[in-house]
Every structure is written in structure tokens, then in C-alpha cells.
């Protein structure tokens, strides 16, 4: 990918988990955001607590970006494994900064700039321990990137002041050692300077933080959860902050108890949620059906990871879509949303609570590890215009003796009265029931009440609240289209922009409401294209399956199953290949429906 020298940087730092790689990368992110630059950063974790390889890649730009970049301009490798794992991720002509004196030979490539730095020795010389080695790395990077000294000083104080004067002073020395070494040994051509822009005041947060903050903004009253990677930060953030906002938080004994707690709390009229990952959603599936049957609102965040079973607990995947849409026995209508950016991880939580309450059913918000841990800059206005839209939960106009909790209505939505209200006592049940809530198993009731519950999805798909959720970009006259969801959208957005620049007509649709599909976003899109590409981080093509079964259109799938997100380059190659095929099929030959094929990235 092309790279202008200024304010456009992809930096990757790799090392051993626990040696401060993430701290360094986050510090660079924080300072760049304060300099008024946009950021998108991605990190991987080992499944182990101590040790194991970890890396963080960050991308800086003057324009909003939702993709952490393909190959790095600068790679910092703190050990041999980090060189081995990440060298292919360094672009042609990029810079490798590595720990000096590694035993294994460093791979040689023409055009690559090599800078060996004795990080370890510098840390030991300066303060006698390796505790601040990462701050030596930060010092070296500060010099190369031209980070403003006052910003770094401020950041060090924020990080270390509360840990005592000695630790702060040691880290200052470590920073100085890094800066000095770089000044003495590097040449001016080694620099890749970032310069401040006037667009300051941005916020920097992860997808998990955005989702947690979004649920607070939506007025969540109760959270129940069980820790699970990669969603635990949502739970931890709310454990700390929900009580401060007046809500209640409970860690339960398992995910079944968590969703049961959500069910009980939501039944009383409170806004309740849980956050989990695939294994947890599997356990919750039975109660998802109960929530649907008893028409109780609930918000469930699933930050997807590699599956099935324990799978790849710390890696990303988009393989819970069909579970989210269909999981639970019987036919249990629910709503499925998927944010494509960190900002949307915030916005869609507000939407999720509103929709859950209005349509009285569970809402599953599908994130994935890549978006949960993605660090992105977000405009500071994210709270403006948020007002929680409470559903039709208030007391029915009907007299208590005529109240029917599951009354048949035009929209399928029945008047909801909360327990504690005198005169309206009713029972909610997972059994099939009549309008009053009494168990009833006759043929008529089951047909009518099933239709009533499903009718709410029809009403939802026509709701103005969901009309503007999707995003569509690229050349709208293009007959080559891409549909994608969740964290894949950032790479697609970038690939489409590059393809359009190169004169290849292609457009894309990113639905945020994945169930039910909104006709007004899908129909015009599908009508305008001839060929549909669906890239997904799963093996079977789950969005492609839904699109084919809903609209009967053929799809061309691109499935990546590596535990890491798509590169824009991978999407771009697919676009170029399919566009070329379309061109060769064009002249005079009868239009052939593209045969379905699963193209898997093997590189």
C-alpha cells in the first residue's frame, strides 16, 4: 500500500507477553491522538498469562481510519520470536528496529533499514533492572517519530506518578537513555516524523471500552456476567463504573446464571445486560429462547473468538452469526446487531437497549476479538443527542381487569406492565400461552402467538430507528458489490477506496442489523449489482448463507480462518480478480450467474 511520508504510519511492536509491548504501543497511540491524529490499533495476546508472543500494530493517519493497516513501516522486535513472527509483516523499504545481539541471524532483505538497539543493556546500565526496558523502547520511538517532549513527559507522569517518585524517576531515565541512544546512533533518514494537526480533543478507546461506555450512556441498570476472553473488559469496566452510575453489578457462577439474572431483572422493568463470548452464548441459548417466548428485553454482547469449543480463546473470528440468529430450540425471534468500528460499538449499545425494550425481545450485539481489543480514535461528541427511548412498558390504558400482557396488536408489541403494579398481576411463562399469559397448547394459539412474536421483527425492519444503521460506500454505479459485517468492514472500506482510485468500479454494503435484514438497505444494493463478494472470518460463510437463503442470490465467498483480521490487500486482490473476470465475460456473451466458489486464503 502506498504511504505518504508524513502523518501516515503503520508501526508494529512485537515481544514477549509481560515485557511491556502493549504499554509502549498504547503510549504512542495516546500521544498521537493528543497530537490530533486518527488511529486504529490492533493487538494479539497469547492464551497464557505470562510469556508467549504478543504484538500490537498501530496506524496513524490524518483521516478517520478503521483498519490497523496491512504491513508495517516500522517493526520493533524485542526478541528472536518477534522477528520471526513479524518480519513478513514489514513492508518493502520498511525499518526493522531489533534488540541488538540476538543469537539467530536476522533475515536480510534489500531495501530494509536495520537498526539494532541494545534495549536490554541500556535498561540495565541506566537503572539496573529490566523493569523499564519498554520505556527505553519508547524513548527510541519518540526520537524516530518526533513525539513532542512535553507530551511524553505528561504521559510518564500520568502512568508512574502514583507509583512513587523513584519509579517515575527511573522511567524518566529510561526514556532519556532511549532518546540519547537514538540521537547518537541514528541518521536523519531513519526518522519517520509525525506532526501535530489542529484536530485535537479526540478520545482513544477500545471496542470493549466503547461498548461498556455505550451501555452506561444507554442507562443500563443491571449487569450480570461471567468472565470470558475477549469480553471481560466490558464486565470489568462496568464492575467499576456501573455502581458509580447508580446501577447494580453481579458476577455470577456461570453464563446460564448471568443470562437468568438479566432475565429476572429485565422482567421487573430494568435495563439489563450481559457480555460474553461464544462458549457463553452457547450456554445462554436456552434462556435466549425463554426471553423470546416470554417477551422479555435483554442485551447480550458476544465478543466472538475462534471456535468451536474452547477454540482459539484469544484470537478473532466471525463464526457465531448463525448461533446468534438461530441459536435456541424452537423458533425464537431476536435482534442481532454488529458494530463495524469502535465508535459503533458505543452507538449500537444505545440502539440495542432501545430496540430490546421496544420490541420486548433479546438483542445480541456481535463483536469480535479484533474489534473488542481494537484501539481507535473517536470524536469527542459521542454522547450528543443520546436520549434513551423507553419502550411501551408503561401501564396499559385498559382497566386492570381487562389487561392482557400478551395482547395481540397491529405491531405485535403488547402493553407491558411491571411487577409491583397493583391490579395487573400476570404470569410470564416459557410455555405457549394465550394473550393473558395462561398456558395454552391448542393449535390456534400456538399459530397465532408465534405469528405475533415474529410480527415484531417485521415491525422492527420498518422502524425508522434502524433505517440509517447500515453503511454503503464505494462507486454506487458499480456492478461488483461486497457485503461484509463487523470488524471486516475497515479492511473492505480501504480496499474499495484503493480499487476505486485505480479505476475499478466496486461498492460495498455493511449492514449493522444482521437479523432481521432491512429490505430498504439490501434490496436497492442487490438490485444495483451483478456479482456479490462476501469476505468473512469464518470457514462456511455465514453472512453469505443468510444472504443466499433470504434473497436467493449467488455469492462469492472469501473466508479467512487464521485468527487474525483481514488485510486490505487480501480484499483488494479479490476485487481485482473478480473485476477482471467480469471484464472478460462481458463482450457479447450471455450473462452468466457466477458459480459459487469458496476461495480461501492460503498465503
Amino acid at each position, binding site marked *: 500500500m502506498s504511504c505518504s511520508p508524513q502523518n501516515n504510519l503503520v508501526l508494529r511492536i512485537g515481544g514477549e507477553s509481560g515485557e511491556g509491548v502493549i504499554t509502549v504501543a498504547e503510549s504512542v497511540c495516546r500521544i498521537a491522538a493528543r497530537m490530533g491524529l486518527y488511529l486504529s490499533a490492533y493487538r494479539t495476546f497469547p492464551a497464557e498469562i505470562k510469556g508467549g508472543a504478543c504484538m500490537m500494530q498501530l496506524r496513524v493517519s490524518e483521516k478517520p481510519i478503521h483498519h490497523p493497516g496491512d504491513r508495517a513501516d516500522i517493526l520493533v522486535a524485542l526478541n528472536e520470536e518477534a522477528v520471526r513472527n513479524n518480519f513478513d509483516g514489514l513492508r518493502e523499504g520498511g525499518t526493522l528496529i531489533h534488540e541488538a545481539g540476538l543469537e539467530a541471524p536476522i533475515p536480510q532483505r534489500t531495501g530494509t533499514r536495520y537498526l539494532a538497539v541494545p534495549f536490554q543493556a541500556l535498561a540495565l546500565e541506566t537503572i539496573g533492572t529490566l523493569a523499564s526496558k519498554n520505556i527505553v523502547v519508547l524513548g527510541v520511538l519518540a526520537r524516530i517519530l518526533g513525539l513532542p517532549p512535553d507530551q511524553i513527559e505528561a504521559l510518564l507522569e500520568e502512568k508512574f506518578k502514583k507509583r512513587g517518585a523513584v519509579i517515575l524517576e527511573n522511567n524518566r531515565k529510561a526514556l532519556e537513555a532511549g532518546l540519547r541512544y537514538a540521537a547518537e546512533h541514528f541518521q536523519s533518514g531513519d526518522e519517520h516524523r509525525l506532526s501535530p494537526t489542529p484536530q485535537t*480533543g479526540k*478520545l*482513544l*478507546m477500545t471496542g470493549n*471500552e466503547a461498548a461498556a*461506555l455505550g451501555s*452506561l*450512556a444507554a442507562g443500563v441498570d*443491571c449487569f*450480570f456476567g461471567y468472565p470470558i476472553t475477549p469480553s471481560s473488559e466490558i464486565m470489568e469496566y462496568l464492575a*467499576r*463504573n456501573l*455502581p*458509580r*452510575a*447508580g446501577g*447494580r*453489578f*453481579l458476577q*455470577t*457462577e*456461570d453464563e446460564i*446464571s448471568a443470562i*437468568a*439474572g*438479566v*432475565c*429476572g*431483572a*429485565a*422482567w*421487573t*422493568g*430494568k435495563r*439489563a445486560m450481559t457480555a460474553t463470548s461464544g462458549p457463553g452464548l452457547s450456554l445462554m441459548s*436456552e*434462556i435466549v*429462547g*425463554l426471553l423470546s417466548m416470554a417477551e422479555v428485553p435483554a442485551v447480550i454482547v458476544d465478543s466472538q473468538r475462534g471456535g468451536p469449543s474452547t477454540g482459539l480463546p484469544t484470537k478473532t473470528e466471525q463464526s457465531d452469526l448463525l448461533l446468534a440468529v438461530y441459536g435456541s430450540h424452537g423458533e425464537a425471534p431476536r435482534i442481532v446487531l454488529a458494530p463495524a468500528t469502535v465508535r459503533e460499538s458505543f452507538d449500537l449499545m444505545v440502539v440495542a437497549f432501545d430496540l430490546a425494550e421496544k420490541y420486548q425481545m433479546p438483542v445480541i450485539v456481535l463483536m469480535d476479538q479484533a474489534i473488542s481489543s481494537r484501539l481507535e480514535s*473517536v470524536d469527542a461528541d459521542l*454522547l450528543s443527542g443520546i436520549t434513551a427511548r423507553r419502550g411501551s412498558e408503561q401501564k396499559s390504558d385498559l382497566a*386492570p381487569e381487562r389487561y392482557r400482557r400478551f395482547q395481540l396488536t397491529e405491531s405485535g408489541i403488547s402493553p407491558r406492565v*411491571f*411487577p*409491583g403494579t*397493583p*391490579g*395487573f*398481576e*400476570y*404470569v*410470564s*411463562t*416459557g*410455555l405457549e400461552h394465550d394473550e*393473558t399469559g*395462561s*398456558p*395454552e*397448547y391448542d393449535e390456534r394459539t400456538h399459530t397465532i402467538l408465534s405469528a405475533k412474536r415474529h410480527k415484531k421483527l417485521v415491525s422492527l425492519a420498518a422502524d425508522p430507528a434502524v433505517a440509517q444503521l447500515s453503511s454503503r460506500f464505494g462507486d454506487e454505479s458499480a456492478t461488483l458489490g461486497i457485503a461484509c459485517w463487523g470488524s471486516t468492514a475497515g479492511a473492505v472500506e480501504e480496499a474499495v477506496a484503493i480499487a476505486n482510485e485505480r479505476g475499478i468500479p466496486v461498492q460495498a454494503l455493511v449492514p449493522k442489523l444482521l437479523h432481521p435484514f432491512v429490505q430498504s438497505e439490501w434490496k436497492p444494493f442487490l438490485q444495483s449489482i451483478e456479482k456479490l463478494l462476501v469476505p468473512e472470518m469464518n470457514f462456511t460463510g455465514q453472512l453469505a448463507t443468510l444472504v443466499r437463503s433470504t434473497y436467493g442470490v449467488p455469492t462469492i465467498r472469501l473466508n479467512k480462518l487464521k485468527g487474525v483480521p483481514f488485510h486490505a490487500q487480501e480484499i483488494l486482490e479479490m476485487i481485482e480478480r473478480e473485476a477482471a473476470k467480469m471484464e472478460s465475460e462481458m463482450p457479447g456473451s450471455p450473462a452468466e450467474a457466477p458459480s459459487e466458489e469458496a476461495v480461501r486464503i492460503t498465503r
Partner: protein
Amino acid sequence: MATERGAAVATEEMEITESDGEPLSFQCYLGSLEPVWCPGCGDYSVMGAFVEAARHLRIPTHHLALVSGIGCSSRFPFFVKGYGFHGVHGRALPIAQGVKLANPELTVVVPGGDGDGLAIGGGHLPHVARNNPDITYLLFNNSIYGLTKGQTSPTSPHNLATKTSPYGLVGQSMNPSFLALAYGATFVARGAAVRRDHLADLIRQGIEHPGFAFIEIITSCSSFNTKHISITKVLQRMVEIDEPPSDELEAMRMAADPHDTYLGVFRKVLQPTLEQSLEKARELSQRTGVITAKDLLHQFQ
């Protein structure tokens, strides 16, 4: 299935909410459906004892939240007037915990069987017990699966022959009260369906107890458990406890006694309830003031 109950409910009487005064009428607490239990089922007596306790405590029906799972006794919320949540098998306790946590004003009562509470839902009991929400759990112990027509339950005796244990039950029988004591429930009692007034008093004490009240109720299944637990046999072995023993180990010994069936309160201690603990956490968290999402934005600058 169930027939609608014809009798009008005395709604005006329910307007009275002061807890002191004459007991409310029995009819106040009758739900919209007639019970569907088999003739001779012990559940009728338990329902009678519950209503007796509720009318003496003058609990307004709209403050009642009856939360249950699946099983014969779990149909209880349909037959008693109040707000009811009849959910899935085994999850009544964590749902009830969510109800109480979200709205502490409600009087939350969980009726359920030994299969619902100790087999499929057995993993929740220790945790709800240690959280100590102010809810009352009525564990109907009839030692058999009635709704599914006569399979073994966790409290069925070893070697019992049933449809699913034709050569004799392999596992040993669980002792619900003993478990509840071990799990640290702050109120543990055992009653029997055949002693309705005694049971009504235990349920009243359980509802009044601030915290998790576990009440094991020895009852009988008139259709599928007629052979191995004869009510007369249980009656002969019953010993009433006057006062909860001050010695924890003595309470456990009584609950586990293989010869005598002790009835009464085994433990009654005061510990912070879940609601109080969460309130304390909230106060602690708000020392520097109440926040909204806006107050957190600075963390991301």
C-alpha cells in the same frame, strides 16, 4: 388444560398494605387458574400453607413475585395470585436473584421441586445461598420426577427401581437441608406437607427472614412415589425442633440424622443480604459523587 377460576377476587381488600391488622382473606391469594395437581398430591397442602403465611403477613399480591422453573410444583405461580415468572428447568433461583436485585421491594418466593433445584439447577443453589438475596426458596422434596412420570430424582433412595433405574438407582440420595447448611444459607428449615400449620409457620419465618431462606418441604407424589416413601413412615419418624440449635455442627447432625426426620428451623443467622451488599458497594463507589457516562470521557483523552 387448566380451568379459569370463577370466583371474583376481592381486589379492594388488596388496597390495604399495612402489615399489621387482621389476616387477609384466603381468596385474595387465589390465582386465575385452578391447580392441575393430581388428587392427593402434597402440593395442595404446601400451597395452602403458603397462602396461610402470606395472608398473615398481609403481603399485597402485586408485591409478590413467584419465580419458578419446571416441574409439578413449579406450576405454583399460576395458582396463586401475584406476579409470576415460570421459566426454564433449573434456573428459577438465578432468575429470582435477578428479580430481587433489580427490585428489592418485591417479596420474591421460589417454589420448585427436588429435580429442578438439586439436579439440573444444583449448580446455582450454593451461589445463591452465599450471595444471600432476600428470597424464600420452597424446595418441594417428593423424591421422584412427577411431571415426566416417575423417574429418579436426586433425593430418591439408593437402589430405588423406577422407569429409568429398572435395576436399582446407582447413586446415593442427597439431603437438601444438610446441603443448604453446608452452602451457608442463612435460614434453613425443614417442614412437611402433612403438617400444614407447622409448615405455614416456617414459610412465614422464611419470608420474614432478611436473606436467603431455604425451606425443604417433605411431600409426596400420589401418582409415582407411593411405594418408597410412605407418609405414615415419615410421620412416625418426625421430631420437631423448638429452637434452631446454637451449635452449627449439631444443626448439621440433626439435618443428616438417618433415623429421625427433624422438622423445624436448623439455622437462622443474620448476614448482609445481596441487596445490602450491593448498596454498600454503590455507596463506596459514589464517595466521589454519582457519575454519568459524560464523567468518564476524560479517561479516554
